[in-house]
């Protein structure tokens, strides 16, 4: 986004809040609280209908467990250690795969973003590879890496590396050339330019890529753990399928959902922290 675009929006925002006679601070608080509550109402209603349907016997437990049953199962899985252990395993796989993706993606993004030769060597293969659906590689990965931890972590890393690479590359290429020129007139060294101009300038895009990467890594994990695993949330769910335990499957789904939500909140937190220089940031609502 260009400097002027951000400024204009900032001014517009200040202007409207001044006209409404509400201080920006108050407005922001209200904006977070009120829609939050309103948005909860409809899901809660659905939950009530679901529970009523189960209690009235309209929904057979074989197909869909009731919310109350799911809560009880959740509690017992928590108590007997099944859930913490499997969750730990899943988190470990996702975390490690994501970490590898971040390191590799940023490395490749820097190489292709900062040098013409680097771009020629790195970018074309990445653009070709990214069109492959990563999940189609599962059989190959099992052949290559066996059925241990490696194929699962590799699958997560592979899925997550592309959004990180592509967005960082786009961020670096999209840097304002005037800022780079300014860095030259100030006699900044190449290292200083990368540290103070290139990386911070590409950070908003990198964070967008990171958010995608986190989402994809859960997706990859689900598949990896359901195809061939002895542990993890996905395995727990596949096991439950054999015994028609829809309550356990639903617990697994809920956990995945919470993981997705939690990691999204984490990335948002990172964005607020790292992009504090954008005056619009705190007030901006992004889906």
């Amino acid at each position, binding site marked *: 986004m260009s400097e002027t675009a951000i400024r204009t929006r900032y001014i517009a925002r200040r202007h409207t809040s001044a006209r409404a006679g509400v201080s920006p601070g108050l407005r922001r608080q209200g904006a977070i609280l009120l829609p939050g509550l309103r948005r909860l109402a409809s899901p809660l209603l659905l939950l009530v209908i679901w529970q009523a349907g189960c209690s009235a016997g309209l929904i057979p437990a074989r197909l869909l467990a009731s919310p109350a049953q799911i809560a009880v199962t959740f509690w017992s899985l928590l108590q007997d250690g099944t859930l913490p252990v499997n969750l730990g395993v899943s988190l470990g796989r996702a975390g490690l795969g994501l970490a590898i993706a971040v390191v590799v993606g940023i490395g490749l993004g820097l190489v292709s973003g900062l040098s013409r030769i680097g771009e020629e060597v790195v970018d074309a293969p990445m653009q070709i590879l990214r069109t492959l659906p990563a999940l189609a590689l599962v059989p190959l990965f099992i052949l290559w890496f066996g059925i241990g931890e490696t194929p699962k972590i590799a699958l997560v890393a592979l899925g997550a590396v592309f959004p990180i690479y592509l967005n960082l590359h786009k961020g670096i290429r999209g840097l304002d050339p005037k800022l780079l020129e300014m860095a030259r*007139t100030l006699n900044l060294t190449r290292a200083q330019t990368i540290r103070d101009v290139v990386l911070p300038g590409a*950070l908003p895009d990198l964070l967008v890529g990171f958010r995608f990467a986190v989402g994809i890594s859960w997706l990859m994990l689900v598949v990896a753990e359901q195809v061939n695993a002895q542990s993890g949330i996905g395995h727990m769910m596949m096991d439950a399928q054999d015994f028609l335990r829809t309550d356990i499957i639903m617990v697994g789904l809920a956990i995945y959902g919470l993981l997705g939500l939690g990691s999204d909140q984490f990335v948002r937190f990172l964005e607020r922290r790292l*992009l*504090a220089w954008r005056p619009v940031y705190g007030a901006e609502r992004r889906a």
Partner: protein
Amino acid sequence: MSAVRVEGLTRRFGQAPAVLDRLDLTIAPGAFTALLGHSGSGKSTLLRLLAGLDDVSEGRIERPDAVSVVFQEARLLPWKRVWQNVALGQTDADARDRAHAVLEEVGLGHRIDAWPLTLSGGEAQRVALARALVREPKLLMLDEPFAALDALTRMRMQGLVEDLWARHGCAVLLVTHDVDEALTLADRAVVLERGRIGTDLRVDLPRPRRHASPEREDLRRRLLAALHVHEHAA
């Protein structure tokens, strides 16, 4: 002794006629020079060569190592606070203090920790000025630095630049479209015509130069004529 010596400088883009055509220009240390010329006459091209942003292929440029440029846009890094923008690339321990001191000079001592996107256009341009001055340049180049500002702010900025120039004693090369601005600030006004310095006038008026005078009117007429602007034409 001279701050800048340009000899036979030629610059062309592709097959088009040369934008700068064997241009000669000498600027004395500490002198305030205004560079005028039509849009597209090559003023920015000359500045970029002087700033070292483009390579000299034909001709020679002698210039001090310490040069600073301020462009029409402030070109601040939005992710660095105001003082960090000013101190950018300065690695010495007292960089922050020096940045603060220069920001005081341009009247922004109270905004040193602000984010650039919260500044007004005039404030941002003053930060850019501070960033240029903190490097203690021997030559300060300004490429239409006030063009995007409103008339009132522009007058304040002109006064500020005059003060800073008097205090820092660096040579200043100011690109402007505004003949009055040139006559208010500069010791010398040169006009870029067909790739060379065509008109070269000494502006020997007592400072401060807020008032009209017959000498000023005369200089004004000669500059406008050099720019082929006839006062009654419009």
